[in-house]
């Protein structure tokens, strides 16, 4: 979460249960102005919620959502809606009854239903064994345990905050997103985010992680001010190791401040290479030059390029140190 956004979204002159009270304090200006009035309570957008629908099928949920896109939202764990309820929303569509939460292993890989909490995913033995425990290690650094016990993978994927560690991890794992928008389909995560301009985003019903070679390993690096603050920048890599060289290399950087994206040039530079300090250094420099870094009030473009170089280098150094040496 980002401080001024939070202030702005919850700061309002409206009192939750009545007319605005006398002004107590004010700070900021424009959209970031926050006024505190007597009798104010937080989470002001929530008081406009008039009903919660509880569909039992994706088709029913989709019909409810598309019947009135302005006033409805899908409700997963609910954290994001509580913190950032759009003012037009009056009906929440609770999608927790659409499928049984959990992680299951099949011939094609792992399937995670959308309603599965981040805690449950990181505790699943299938996840611990997948890609050397990469996803488990990422999820352990997402928010706090208290929030991970509520937040769902479907919500994290659908909301896709630019700083999302979950989106970053799914991109480097070649995950598919299962969606429903009148019909059920499965799309690569990158395509899912590239096509998000449509009026009503599809309902996320699950995640599929492809079967990976046992030698698959990944590493994740997040730069943040505190242990469970959102990252100033995050990066991750996943590789398969065979005969001492990297293959199926995936590298992505997020919070640039845009949503995570893969860096194909960096991936190509490492594909088929032995991860020496020279190749790692070259790849990190290439990432710093190629990343779509920009300024915002949290960090400068220059700082983000520097973080990218450090992050990519650390990821590959950690892979070399922790997982790949035995395979080299």
């Amino acid at each position: 979460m980002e401080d001024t956004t939070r202030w702005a979204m919850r700061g309002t002159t409206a009192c939750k249960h009545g007319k605005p009270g006398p002004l107590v304090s004010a700070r900021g200006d424009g959209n970031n102005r926050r006024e505190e009035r007597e009798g104010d309570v937080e989470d002001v957008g929530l008081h406009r919620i008039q009903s919660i629908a509880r569909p039992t099928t994706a088709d029913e949920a989709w019909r409810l959502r598309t019947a009135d896109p302005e006033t409805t939202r899908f409700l997963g764990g609910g954290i994001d809606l509580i913190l950032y309820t759009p003012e037009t929303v009056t009906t929440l569509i609770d999608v927790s009854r659409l499928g049984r939460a959990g992680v299951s292993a099949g011939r094609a890989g792992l399937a995670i239903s959308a309603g599965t909490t981040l805690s449950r995913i990181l505790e699943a033995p299938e996840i611990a064994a997948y890609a050397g425990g990469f996803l488990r290690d990422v999820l352990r650094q997402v928010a706090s345990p208290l929030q991970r016990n509520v937040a769902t993978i479907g919500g994290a994927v659908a909301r896709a905050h630019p700083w999302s560690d979950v989106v970053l991890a799914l991109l480097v794992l070649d995950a598919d997103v299962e969606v429903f928008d009148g019909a059920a389909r499965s799309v690569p995560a990158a395509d899912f985010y590239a096509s998000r301009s449509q009026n009503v985003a599809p309902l996320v019903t699950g995640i599929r992680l492809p079967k990976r070679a046992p030698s698959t390993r990944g590493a994740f690096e997040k730069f943040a001010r505190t242990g469970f603050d959102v990252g100033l920048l995050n990066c991750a890599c996943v590789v398969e190791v065979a005969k001492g060289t990297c293959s199926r290399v995936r590298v992505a950087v997020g919070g640039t401040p845009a949503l995570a994206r893969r860096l194909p040039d960096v991936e190509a530079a490492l594909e088929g290479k032995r991860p020496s300090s020279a190749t790692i250094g070259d790849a990190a420099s290439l990432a710093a030059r190629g990343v779509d870094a920009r300024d915002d009030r949290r960090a400068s473009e220059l700082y983000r390029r520097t973080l990218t170089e450090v992050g990519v280098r650390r990821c590959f150094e950690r892979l070399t140190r922790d997982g790949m040496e035995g395979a080299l």
Partner: protein
Amino acid sequence: MTSLELTINGARRVVDANPGDTLLEVLRRAGHVGVKKGCGSGDCGACTVLLDGRAVNACLVLAAKAEKRAILTIEGLANGDALHPIQEAFLDEGAVQCGYCTPGMVLSAYDLLSRNPTPSEGEIREAISGNLCRCTGYVKQIRAVQTAAERMRSGRNG
């Protein structure tokens, strides 16, 4: 307002709530003021309760989502006048100063120890990482959780 059926500390309660009410608001209105309101945005952990055995920020859960699920607040932890071993350990180790974070800290520890009776210091730190204490340096709380774990394993309390 609609009626919600909640199970709080093992007792069934029917409470009035708006669809947008958080669990924190409903619990406090129902008299469970051990559930503290701090930041209201999931940062401080003062409002921690257990929902189906897992510690959550009550400020980030809609009350409607807690229907037909087991809610445990700090008021439900002691057995009559006998404090829970975690509560006793917090007292014995001096892990309480102003006390505002204590209910949340104790319940996060309860969640941890119910799943992991022998946590490492790192696991304890991770478990209470969503509970901020502005008075102390966390050292005594960590020691208290370690003490509670030892006592719970050996069946002792105090």
